[in-house]
């Protein structure tokens, strides 16, 4: 509790130093505004440089051809990388989406107990695992067991990265559905699983789609786990048990090459990747995020 003397002191302090206090206030406001500018400058620079350096390389051939021999005149394109990224997104979603949605259903509908709380906690922990560790794990359990780098291993690693994001967003969207919807379903004598699948999931559709898009945008830019799993390749799809290329991986490999033409292609690939990721994020924001306020569990993250 503040005593009367303290209060008097407060009042005196506030009354006596008005001009210096106002100056401090102005200075702090200036600093705070400077912080915002400091964050916007790198973002602007990144976007401008990616467009400026990447745009000249874009062509039909760049999108469709296999990469040419390193350092030669035949530049080729990043066709396999685009194919690989799309395939990885599709394949990881095959595991990540159903398991994640079911996990979210469990947490929201059956998870109000000790086990549910534990899973929720571990799900949040898994969401923050360094993805390089998940790559190492997929390498040990799939690549080492099957004997070579493969698309399957990449899919497995990325599906693990998707899972917590989808589980979390599904749970959150289901919880936003009013209890009355559930009650109305039960009142009609509808079984719980039908209530969940036909009523709740339909009502929470936009939240579910947001979650899936967030997860896809995340794994689309994921690089570290791919080093250990799909390895990279300069050919189009040859088999699920074969190495494959992906956009982020290709950007990394190109950036390490000592040729200006390769680096230019790296910028081109970066432009393609950033367009995919940002259009997913922006589209989602305008479609869904704005409507439901800023839920803590719907947050954009980028691949690492």
């Amino acid at each position, binding site marked *: 509790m503040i005593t009367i003397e303290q209060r008097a002191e407060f009042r005196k302090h506030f009354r006596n130093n008005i001009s210096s206090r106002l100056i401090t206030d102005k200075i702090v406001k200036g600093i705070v505004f400077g912080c915002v500018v400091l964050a916007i400058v790198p973002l602007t620079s990144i976007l401008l440089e990616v467009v400026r350096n990447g745009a000249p390389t874009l062509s039909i051939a760049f999108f469709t051809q296999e990469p040419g021999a390193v350092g030669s005149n035949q530049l080729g394109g990043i066709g396999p990388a685009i194919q690989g990224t799309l395939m990885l997104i599709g394949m990881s979603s095959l595991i990540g989406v159903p398991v994640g949605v079911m996990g979210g259903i469990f947490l929201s509908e059956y998870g109000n107990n000790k086990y549910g709380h534990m899973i929720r906690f571990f799900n949040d*922990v898994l969401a923050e695992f360094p993805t390089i560790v998940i790559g190492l794990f997929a390498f040990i359990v799939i690549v080492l067991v099957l004997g070579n780098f493969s698309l399957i291993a990449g899919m497995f690693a990325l599906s693990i990265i998707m899972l917590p994001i989808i589980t979390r967003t599904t749970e959150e969207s289901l919880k936003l559905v009013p209890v009355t919807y559930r009650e109305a379903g039960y009142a009609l004598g509808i079984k719980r699983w039908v209530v969940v699948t036909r009523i709740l999931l339909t009502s929470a559709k936009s939240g579910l789609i947001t979650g899936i898009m967030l997860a896809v945008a995340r794994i689309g830019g994921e690089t570290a786990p791919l080093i250990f799993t799909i390895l990279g390749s300069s050919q189009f799809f040859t088999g699920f048990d074969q190495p494959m290329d992906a956009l982020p991986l290709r950007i990394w490999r190109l*950036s390490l090459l000592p040729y200006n033409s390769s*680096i230019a292609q790296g910028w081109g690939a970066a432009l393609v990747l950033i367009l995919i990721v940002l259009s997913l994020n922006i589209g989602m924001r305008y479609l869904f995020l704005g409507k439901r306020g800023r839920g803590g569990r719907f947050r954009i993250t980028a691949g690492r």
Partner: protein
Amino acid sequence: MIQTVKLKGGSPIFDKVFKVMAAIAATYILAIIILIAFQLISGSYPIWDKEGISFLTGSGWNAVEGREVYGAAPYIAGTFVTAGLAMLIGVPISIGIAMFMSELAPKFLRSPLSFVIELLAAVPSVIYGLWGLFIFRDYIKNWIEIPLGNTFGNKVWFLSGAPFGLDIFTTSIVLAIMIIPTISTISREIMIAVPNSQREAAYMLGATKWEVFKMAVIPYSKSGLIGASILGLGRAVGETMAVTMLIGNATGPSAFPSSLFAPGQTMSSIIANEFAEASPGSLHLAALVGIGLILLIVAIAINIVAQLLVSRVLKAHEGAVLA
């Protein structure tokens, strides 16, 4: 009528089956975590067997057969130094941004601003790396490192060395940029969760905006802000690609962070860099898996602490929050 009968869901067994399926999906998450921990422990067993505790404390790194020696200390130090520096730069800026967004910004600016910060969060790590490697590095080298190095290089130990641009300094700054969106968005939510009555009480005393922030918002949201910062730390510790591309990739004792302008190595970057050279079954691979295990333990510990701090503040507001 037929439609309704169908909708009712048939035998009660389906209900049980559905619940079990949901429980299996949830358990899958737990199983994956346990399996990851188990595989990393068993995969790195050879290195613990050979090096013992000196794997944590040693600094030698030689993969030549017969003279193999592995010590992870320089990389553990590198991770903490880069992440720590990133926090030093990133946390004040993030808190500033959060303060601007929750207290100062006019209404019409708030939503575009949070959109911009979100874009910063959406840029993949490898693109930060590319930008850092070919664009940012030159600015840092020519405008900051060379002048500082020329003036203080001989006198101040942490500014010594020939500035090259690919070093701990550049890495830390890029890491700081990468953790700003995480910390500032969560901090903003935490500040918004501070009841307005707190602010009004301070205004009533005649406080300025800054004083309101200092007197009412900060004390109320302190633990949440610390949690948000620690969450940012966790992100910086696990960051791989940008670091791998920018840190200069030193190995062995020279990788110990001795100067800001010296190349270094972090736990994640050494795994990414050396992985291609480590053959299956070799001690080299076990050493890298061992470093992965240390990284995982560090990341989990950081995260649990952050989780507890942040969720306690936001629980009443909107449930547990994660980036």
